[in-house]
C-alpha cells in the first residue's frame, strides 16, 4: 500500500487546456510538497503547503492542501508544452524526519 497515491499516473492534454493532479493519503501530514522531475535529474521543489486548506499559486500553477492535511492537488491553467514533465507529491508525517514520495504523474502537453 502506497502512503501517497497520485492520480492519474499519466495525463496527456492539448496546449491551452487545464489539468489537475491529485495526491491522496489516509495519513495526516505536517507538510506536503510538489516537485517536478526531468529525466536523469533530481526532483526540483515547486511548492510546500503546511496549513490545512492552504492554497498557493505559482504563475499558472495552483496548489491546494486539504483541510484535514491528508491530500493535495496541483492545477495547471492553460497548460503549455513547457509544463511537460513528471510531477511528484511528497509528504512529511508528523514526527518523521523523511519525505515519502508518490509514484508521480507524467504530464504531456501537446502543441
Amino acid at each position, binding site marked *: 500500500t502506497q502512503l501517497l497515491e497520485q492520480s492519474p499516473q499519466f495525463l496527456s492534454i492539448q496546449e491551452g487546456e487545464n489539468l489537475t493532479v491529485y495526491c491522496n493519503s489516509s495519513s495526516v501530514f505536517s*507538510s506536503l510538497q510538489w516537485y517536478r522531475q526531468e529525466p*536523469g535529474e*533530481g526532483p526540483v*521543489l515547486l511548492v510546500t503547503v503546511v496549513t490545512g486548506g492552504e492554497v498557493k499559486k505559482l504563475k499558472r500553477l495552483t496548489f491546494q492542501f486539504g483541510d484535514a492535511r491528508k491530500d493535495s492537488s496541483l492545477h495547471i491553467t492553460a497548460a503549455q508544452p513547457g509544463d511537460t514533465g513528471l510531477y511528484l507529491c511528497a509528504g512529511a508525517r508528523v514526527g*518523521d524526519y523523511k519525505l515519502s514520495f508518490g509514484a508521480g504523474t507524467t504530464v504531456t502537453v501537446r502543441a
Partner: protein
Amino acid sequence: EPEVTQTPSHQVTQMGQEVILRCVPISNHLYFYWYRQILGQKVEFLVSFYNNEISEKSEIFDDQFSVERPDGSNFTLKIRSTKLEDSAMYFCASSTTGPLNYGYTFGSGTRLTVV
C-alpha cells in the same frame, strides 16, 4: 542559487565492490538525506542525518549501507558489497529544517550501475 552537488554523476562498479557516493549539501543546511530511485520506480527514502548522526533510516538502509559527514562540507553514502539490485539513481538532499520541513534541495544524482 545554492546547489547540492553530487559526484560522480555516473558510477559503474562490479558486483561485490564497494562504492562511495559523494555529496556537498548547501552550506547553511542542517539536515541531510539520501534517496534512491530505481529506473521507472518512485523515489525512496534511505536515510536522514542531523547533528552528526542518523535520525531515521528505512528498511532498505541495512548493514550494507553507511553514511558519514567526514568534514564540514561533504556527506557520503557508502555501499559495501554491491549487488545488481543496487543499480539506481541515488539522490542527496539537504534542508534547513527537519520534520516540519519546508522543502528539500536535491542534487542531480549519481547513476550507479552494478554489473
